[in-house]
């Protein structure tokens, strides 16, 4: 515990490169968000909860179902075909299941890797525990928020806020580990330790 600062050069290099590579992945993630923006609790709520059976196509729900025995009816109104391709990104339950299946393992592995780096940092046990908890709880909050917004549309804004908070908590955990790793491994190493490395 806490030995990363005194670790051999290659160990510190691996920890640092892991964090920087993770940062590159995150930058591309940010690019993806730019393409499929959902930056606010309200937008997250709308993305997940607005259309529970949502498709990637702008939806036109069937108007409804008549009681048994009644004939089907149709209403028509003029449509501007150029509006058909307006992008609208929603997440249906099927997609949410798929996203949960894909993201959760990646988040778990990332949190585990961050925790390993945290174990090597010079921190109190309490601080280490807090960061480890943050690293694992943040993605959980993120997905609890997404599922909550999807399952309980009435509270979608609240759950959207939880998702946003979870996302930024992940960023906070990463920032904390990155800054401390750079500081302890490269910027504030005692000279005598450098000579032993």
């Amino acid at each position, binding site marked *: 515990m806490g030995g990363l600062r005194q670790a051999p050069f290659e160990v510190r290099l691996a920890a640092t490169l892991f964090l920087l590579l993770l940062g590159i992945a995150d930058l591309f*993630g940010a690019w993806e968000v730019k393409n499929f923006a959902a930056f606010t609790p309200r937008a997250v709520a709308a993305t997940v909860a607005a259309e529970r*059976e949502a498709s990637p196509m702008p939806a036109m729900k069937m108007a409804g179902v008549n009681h048994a025995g009644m004939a089907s009816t149709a*209403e028509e109104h003029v449509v501007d*075909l150029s509006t058909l*391709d307006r992008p609208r990104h929603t997440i249906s339950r099927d997609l949410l299941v798929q996203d949960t299946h894909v993201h959760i393992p990646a988040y778990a592995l990332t949190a585990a890797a961050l925790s390993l780096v945290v174990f090597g940092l010079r921190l109190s046990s309490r601080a280490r525990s807090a960061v480890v908890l943050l690293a694992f709880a943040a993605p959980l909050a993120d997905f609890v928020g997404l599922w909550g917004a999807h399952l309980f549309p009435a509270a979608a804004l609240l759950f959207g806020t939880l998702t946003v908070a979870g996302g930024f908590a*992940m*960023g906070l955990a990463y920032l904390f580990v990155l800054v401390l790793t750079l500081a302890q491994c490269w910027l504030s190493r005692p000279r005598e330790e450098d000579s032993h490395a």
Partner: protein
Amino acid sequence: MRKVRAVLLALSLAPALPALAHVTPNVELLKKGEFVQQSLPGATRFLEQKLTFGGGDLAAVKKATGWTPSEEDVRIYVGRNAQGERVGTVVLLWMASEHGPVGVGVAFGGDGKILRAAVTDIGSEPLAWVRPLLQGDGLATWNGLALDTAPDAAKVAPQVTGRMSRYYAEVIAQGVARAQAVERVSLTAAK
């Protein structure tokens, strides 16, 4: 040093962003507006039709396709000529599949025969399996299919033998069958 700090800050905040989206991007293969317009060249006006299913029609659709329309998103666009006659319909619907979504569009003539079937959108993962089916206009095999004739998935690009491609041929065929079922109700309801 200030620049370094800014980069570090950007790097550290970036992980939060993808968490807010979680959108698996889909690939748009066809502009739906263009698909509707090109498929119904005789139409001068386009109308969106909203169907309210009668109990009997709903049961018939479910019996024919195993699908209840109200559970899915379907869009129906009717093309009419200058005299107000119905020249055709385009049904756009969404098929969920194991590896991602498939958007299916089917254009019907005034007599209910298929004018054209297409995949309009698809998840990035199944694209690799669906693309071979679409090359050489594989779905054209269903052009002219009568409304009461089920689309045969085996006839779509039979030279493509990959297991996953054949699975997606079935998914697309199911989508076309659903569109036919909706079109049947649409034609009846509009009379």
